[in-house]
């Protein structure tokens, strides 16, 4: 494990050399004294906690944001990147953490946008796309609308966009957060191919095992600055995590089962018709008191619909939903919540929060009909503030107060607030969809602990996650969902992520 290592002198200059990069936002130092060298023909991983400054750094390298200090060299020449256009001209391409695609455009339109000079917007462009798609095995159909594509395909479109512009340096910001193992493998195969062609790949991920498996070099970012550059052979994931956090991590406690015989949630024959096929097809299962049921599946196979059907947010759903013996089949979302369901939604910005409202109002959200925050139809502001304060303390939400707008919190802290809120009022069932997506390892551990504690006290949990390690680590039982059907049940203590992965993609394999 070396200190921030200067580039080894070799015959050619590194593809990217960052020196002394600094970036301040009002009141926040996002980056300072960042030094990184990325060699040609390597995969270079960047890791760090939420808010460590990784994305900011990449945006600087891609010209989205201007650095306050420091220099950027591409292939040994100092450059100034005023806009993404400049960066593209210098052969840099970036796949953002959140996809940058226009849903209502075709793949072709998304790809040629901004690069129309290369091959126009017609037949020549289509031919070039097909050429690249074949050359890299990306399997792209240029005339599909992006909104009809799955996550994996979108990811490939993003990569094609970069290749189309002839990028020599490719930045991938958390590309694997939403992919299943097979898709991750495919992606990594693509990356290795690019590497073999002499391209440099910069790769950000919170999944340290992946990082260790694919990267040639790893740079650790902590509180805005590079603290170490290591080779994957020198470290294991635990050491890497400790480098990120700057201190030792607590060992996750292993637990004995708390599953009881009492059924909390019983789902029978759940169906949901879609445009051309059933989105949910005869789904049925039980969750007992103290049990965590994990649902594994490739995104878009009905998980979101399942959650929303159980929450009563889908109007066309038929089938029976019983909570602690009470029939909720015809109940509204509100009645289901009142009956004791807590809900951590998949998309916290869209479903979990009022971003432009203060934290205490976000505490009321979803609990509008329950004390202490609402009494006799009136919002009790004092009680709401007090209870928000309780959550802040119990769940370690980093915020200066309860009157701050939710938007001002970082993603991890927003998530902790949501979990804390959904746990208040002592729910008997928690539906948690991707509760730790994009959350760093420290905060992740905190959220898991809270779920474990509640389970011990009798909470039943329906856990949906794309993170198979999380599923395996937390669940008492795992069901696999494929095209709206439950296709297999696994014991987490027996199953490997790979086994789960193949079950998730079905016998035919391709997703």
């Amino acid at each position: 494990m070396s200190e921030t290592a200067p580039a080894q002198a070799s015959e050619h200059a590194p593809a990217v050399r960052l020196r002394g990069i600094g970036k301040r936002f009002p009141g926040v130092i996002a980056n300072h004294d960042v030094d990184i060298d990325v060699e040609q023909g390597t995969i270079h991983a960047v890791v760090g906690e939420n808010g460590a400054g990784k994305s900011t750094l990449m945006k600087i390298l891609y010209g989205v944001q201007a650095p306050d200090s420091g220099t950027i060299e591409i292939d040994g020449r100092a450059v100034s990147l005023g806009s993404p256009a400049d960066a593209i001209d210098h052969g840099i391409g970036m796949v953002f953490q959140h996809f940058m695609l226009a849903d209502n455009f075709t793949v072709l339109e998304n790809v040629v946008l901004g690069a129309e000079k290369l091959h126009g917007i017609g037949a020549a462009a289509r031919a070039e796309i097909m050429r690249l798609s074949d050359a890299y095995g990306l399997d792209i159909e240029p005339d599909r609308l992006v909104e009809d594509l799955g996550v994996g395909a979108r990811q490939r479109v993003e990569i094609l966009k970069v290749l189309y512009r002839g990028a020599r340096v490719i930045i991938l910001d958390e590309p694997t957060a939403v992919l299943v193992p097979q898709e991750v493998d495919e992606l990594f195969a693509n990356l290795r191919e690019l590497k073999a062609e002499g391209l440099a790949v910069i790769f950000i991920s919170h999944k340290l095992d992946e990082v260790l498996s694919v990267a040639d070099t790893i740079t650790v970012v902590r509180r805005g600055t590079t603290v170490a550059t290591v080779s994957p052979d020198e470290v294991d994931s635990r050491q890497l995590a400790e480098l990120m956090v700057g201190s030792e991590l607590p060992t996750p406690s292993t637990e004995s089962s708390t599953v009881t015989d009492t059924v909390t949630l019983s789902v029978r024959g759940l169906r949901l018709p879609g445009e051309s096929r059933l989105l949910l097809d005869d789904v049925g299962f039980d969750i007992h008191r103290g049990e965590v049921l994990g649902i594994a599946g490739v995104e878009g196979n009905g998980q979101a619909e399942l959650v929303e059907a159980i929450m009563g947010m889908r109007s066309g759903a038929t089938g029976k939903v019983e909570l602690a013996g009470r029939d909720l089949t015809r109940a509204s979302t509100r009645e289901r919540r009142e009956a004791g369901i807590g809900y951590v939604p998949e998309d916290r910005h869209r479903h979990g929060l009022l971003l432009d409202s203060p934290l205490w109002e976000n505490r009321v959200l979803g609990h509008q009909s329950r004390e202490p925050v609402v009494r006799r139809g009136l919002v009790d502001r004092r009680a709401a503030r007090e209870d928000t304060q309780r959550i802040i303390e119990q769940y370690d939400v980093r915020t200066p107060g309860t009157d701050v707008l939710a938007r001002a919190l970082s993603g991890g802290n927003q998530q902790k607030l949501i979990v804390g809120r959904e746990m208040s009022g002592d729910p008997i069932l928690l539906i948690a969809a991707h509760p730790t997506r994009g959350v760093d390892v420290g905060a992740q551990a905190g959220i898991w602990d809270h779920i474990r504690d509640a389970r011990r006290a009798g909470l039943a949990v329906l856990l949906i996650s794309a993170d198979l390690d999380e599923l395996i680590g937390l669940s008492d039982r795992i069901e696999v969902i494929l095209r709206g059907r439950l296709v297999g049940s696994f014991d987490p203590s027996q199953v490997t992520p790979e086994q789960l992965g193949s079950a998730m993609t079905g016998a035919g394999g391709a997703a």
Partner: protein
Amino acid sequence: MSGLSPRLTKVVLGLSAPVLALFAAFAITSLVLVVAGDPVGGVWGEILTVPATRNVANILNNATVLYLSGLAVAVGFRMNLFNIGVDGQYRVAAFVAAVVAGEGWLPGAANIVLAIAAAMLAGAAWAGIAGVLRASRGVSEVIATIMLNFIATGLVAFFLRKVAVREAGSNTIGTKEIPEGSRIPGFEIGDGATTEVYGFIFLAALAGFAYWFVLNRTRFGFELRATGASTSAAVASGINVKRMTITAMLISGALAGLVGLPILFGDAYAYGSTFQSGLGFAGIAIALLGRNNPIGIAVGALLFAFLDEQSNALQILVGVSPDIVAITQGVIVLTVVISYEVVRRYGVRLEQQRVAGALEQEHRAADEQETHA
């Protein structure tokens, strides 16, 4: 600024925006006058004179009406619904109220109550059409309410002609006059004033208070605002968004139903072909100006009423077209939001600084612990 307490900062920031805007509007209007060669001093001298008592009464009266219109629009805005149809709603409602009150089925005050209820129902029903279309068929409420405005005009004209009575010698038609006992008496301000202030002003204030209380204090109001802030989050929290859409339109329409009533009960006593129109559109500007806040809307309504009243005499006394004031009003709306935006960005930055500052201290404390350990 960062030295002030957050609450005080908020107040100072909140006040600086409108002041900035008024100055900008003043400057731009003056510029227009100068370019056009009109007497700048004369115009401002006339507009900014202290209004006479009866003008004050007029301003209050006009503001009452504008205020109700602003409230009606604002209810929609709080839920991200753009009710551009207050004009049609109050037209339908005022007509219905005038007919009901004019018939005098109930004596005295009971008649007033009945007519007000009828007006609110009519306004709500008219707006409800747009609400139902939006909730059940996904029709943009913007289009629906625009269309309903035109339709209201045609329908009311038709029915007005059916029920109209015409005073001898007059060329206007109107509904039957409201009986003496069922009018809402005004009150005098100052002495010798020839114009009374509408008694309805108290009802308008009450409506403002109800608006504030319901939206900011009750669970229902919370749900309405939450739906406006994020439909998807509202659904997930158990709010029935379709029902909320219809309810919000109904409430907006019911408030719109009140818009014509101060005039009806305090002044005109009948609905006729010269009944004031266009109040709904003024309400949009006023709601936006007042940022959907009941006090803000009151200030906006007073400002607009003040400008309208003071400009009325411009032509007679200074020889300048009072249309210049419309420019001022529009410019105020625009500059207010621009300066709010500028101030807001500044405020966000302050807020971020505060958050970051607090976090940095935490970090430092943590670092210190680390080094001690």
